[in-house]
């Protein structure tokens, strides 16, 4: 059963966190994809491009969910195991939904993300609901995340859907 306190998170900010975009993390990310684009690794090339410096691949920002540093913050409700999106997912696991299915993601990109940026992400729970299925109950979780850089510009926003069973 989905705890009532978790259901009440809809529309609320789940967490905010800061994330430093490091050159080495960008390179490692691009290598893991097999993406040889010089804009992500070659400083000289990037400097002469219209970006003027190394940028991160679109999609790189999603790592913030997994690297987010929410230390010092307290969970939104006492029903949550720990802070942030991973805290919510662990809470769902304890409530009987241990398996996470990544269903898909929507991105809107507004500005490039550059090596050296410090991004602030804000995670809002758009929707969380239980649905019955033949194989048992499922929880659909929709998360909206907005990312701003140190100039206060929103660089991107995402809507991520996961299914928990």
């Amino acid at each position, binding site marked *: 059963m989905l705890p009532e306190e978790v259901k009440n998170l809809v529309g609320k900010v789940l967490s905010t966190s800061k994330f430093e975009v490091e050159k080495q993390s960008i390179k*490692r990310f691009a290598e893991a994809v097999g993406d040889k*684009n010089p804009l992500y690794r070659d400083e000289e090339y990037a400097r002469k491009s219209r970006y003027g410096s190394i940028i991160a691949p*679109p999609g790189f920002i999603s790592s913030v969910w*997994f690297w987010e540093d929410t230390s010092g913050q307290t969970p939104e409700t006492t029903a949550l195991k720990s802070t942030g999106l991973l805290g919510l997912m662990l809470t769902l696991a304890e409530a009987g939904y241990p398996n996470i299915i990544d269903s*898909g993601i929507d991105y809107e990109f507004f500005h490039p993300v550059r090596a050296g940026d410090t991004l602030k992400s804000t995670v809002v729970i758009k929707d969380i609901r239980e649905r019955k299925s033949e194989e048992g109950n499922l929880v659909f979780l929709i998360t909206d995340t907005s990312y701003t850089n140190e100039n206060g510009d929103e660089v991107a926003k995402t809507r991520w859907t996961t299914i928990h069973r």
Partner: protein
Amino acid sequence: MTGQPTWRSVEADVDIPPLPKVATTRMLVEWAGASGDFNPVHYDMSFSRAYGVDGPIVQGALKRQWLIQLITDWMGDEGTLKKFSCKYRTVDYPRNMKTVDEPEDGETWLCKGKIKKKYESNGEPLVECAVWVENGKGEVTTEGKATVVLPR
């Protein structure tokens, strides 16, 4: 890469040059480390079987990133990815490794795309593309949509 495409030069129904990819167990671990997603379903045999699949499965987010590369390779340095979305339809299993850096023979995935329409909005020259990942049998395992700004 075939040079910088321009908004004038592209037409609807034209294919984007496909991008072949081979997923390996090693690559899944590399992606876990690079993305920070350490869900064991992507590298632990007994965990993934308990999850209900036959073995470690390819991360959806890695397939997402393949499709983003398909588009960024095609749009070139002067193109800008404005919107991207994808849905994961079915699971993919990576190839096992034969040596430390060489995969076994097996499946090759193809990232594909097609220009759906070109239009202007708020004075921006935009192109909308359908994108998808096909497994070795030609089945679509991930599909999505990308909106790109191209130079005129």
